[in-house]
């Protein structure tokens, strides 16, 4: 099932969603949580961002998405500078994110959560109901159809009428993915998609990520589940104490003693 239609790059057929982070710095008082980070999440690839707790990964995610902008450096999505944009503008450029702890609108249904994503809906202006009722109805129908197909793709159809606050944590993670997909993003930032998700459901999430990536969506993923990271990611960036300490493919990361010492320990060495 083809779910999204992400915009392609400037050259015909090239994937979009290249994220360039150059010398990004973000401080909280004297603490440089992100301390001169540079790396590239290549368009059409799945890049993993790993590192010990407190390494600055989520802080960097927040900065990329416009929540707590960086103090210096640059962040570019397909040559568009994001570092000075507000979160909703960044979202409009084709960058969607999910959160480590899901944040659905708990008192809205799963379907409503997904349907409210598209921006500039004609029905948001009440006079359109009188002036352009046909447009409002057509748009509503198109949104509903799209939301339903995404919900089905994410395996959420059985709970689409349930309040988002009443479904399990793993299902809420899928709601977040579904909401991201409604925006036809070029790149999706996933913050620990595996945390709190049972292994069988995790397989479903991994399947969906692989399918979406094949459709051209770029992914940048923070994750501690090393089986998932090593098998899913084309490229892995390792952060510790605010800096990039290593990057490369799975084999080189597993063999890097700095990564083993700072992060993996004996379990994956």
């Amino acid at each position: 099932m083809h779910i999204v239609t992400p915009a392609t790059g400037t050259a015909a057929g090239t994937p979009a969603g290249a994220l360039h982070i150059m010398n990004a710095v973000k401080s909280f008082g004297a603490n440089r949580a992100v301390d001169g980070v540079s790396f590239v999440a290549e368009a059409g690839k799945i890049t993993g961002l790993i590192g010990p707790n407190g390494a600055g990964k989520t802080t960097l995610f927040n900065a990329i998405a416009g929540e707590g902008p960086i103090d210096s450096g640059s962040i570019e999505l397909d040559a568009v500078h994001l570092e000075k944009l507000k979160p909703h503008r960044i979202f409009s450029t084709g960058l969607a994110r999910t959160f480590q702890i899901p944040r659905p609108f708990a008192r809205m249904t799963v379907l409503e959560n997904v349907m409210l994503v598209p921006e500039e809906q004609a029905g948001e202006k009440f006079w359109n109901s009188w002036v352009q009722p046909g447009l409002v109805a057509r748009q509503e129908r198109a949104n509903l159809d799209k939301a339903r197909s995404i919900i089905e793709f994410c395996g959420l159809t059985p709970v689409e009428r349930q309040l988002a606050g009443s479904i399990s944590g793993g299902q809420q993670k899928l709601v977040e993915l579904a909401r991201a997909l409604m925006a036809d993003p070029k790149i999706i930032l996933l913050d620990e998609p595996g945390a709190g998700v049972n292994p069988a459901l995790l397989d479903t999430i991994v399947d969906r990520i692989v399918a979406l990536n094949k459709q051209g969506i770029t992914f940048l993923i923070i994750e501690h589940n090393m089986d998932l990271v090593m098998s899913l990611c084309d490229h892995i960036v390792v952060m510790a104490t605010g800096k990039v300490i290593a990057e490369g493919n799975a084999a080189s990361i597993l063999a890097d003693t700095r990564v083993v010492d700072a992060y993996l320990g004996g379990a994956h060495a």
Partner: protein
Amino acid sequence: MSSHLFEARDVVAGYRPDLPIIQGVSMHVDKAEMVTIIGPNGAGKSTMIKAIAGVLPISSGSVTLAGKDITHLPTHAMAASSIAYVPQTENVFTSLTINENLLLGASSMPKPKALEQVSKAYDKFPALKDYRDKKAKVLSGGQRQMLAVARALLTDPHLIMLDEPSAGLSPLMVSDVFARLRELVESGVSVLMVEQNAKAAMRVSHRTYVLAEGRNRVDGPSSALAEDPEVIAIYLGAGGRKR
């Protein structure tokens, strides 16, 4: 009277009395035993330990600790009954410092004892000492989990219940947390934890309960269940290995 340190029998519980999520679950934990609860998302695992902890009402069934009925004890009385509960999220006071969070966990003790217990907590979790006077909101998700566990241990509970203690933790820290929980068990404390990191949890725990749709599905020694084809098929899956 139950011969187990902790026993839940035929517990029915949920967020609304007319919509029980837990529909007659039974389980027990012996002294110095580590027990894991696993199951698909929505199986009722977190609901079960919330109900035991008094966070959610139990509409029928019974819960006993050391032979004493604690079924309907309010949450605050649970701590005095030697049960500690570490929720999955929102388990620290972010606007308080790390030291204040720990002192709150020991607030029922005389001050000298409280300070002694907090000092022991820093010995067990040295990383927290570096942030002693920082607000908990500056901690990463994993560091918050460590603080929550450290605070739960301050009262020297007989039974500590944890809702996904490894969620959001780095591999190194997962090993560390499980090793510490194992040390606790060796010192005589009992542990009941809900985990999605099932393989790792089953490696360190003695027994495992699998819940599905609010009911007991299967239980037994963790080492045996980890090899059980039904458990692997319905629950463990490929664990994220795909490509």
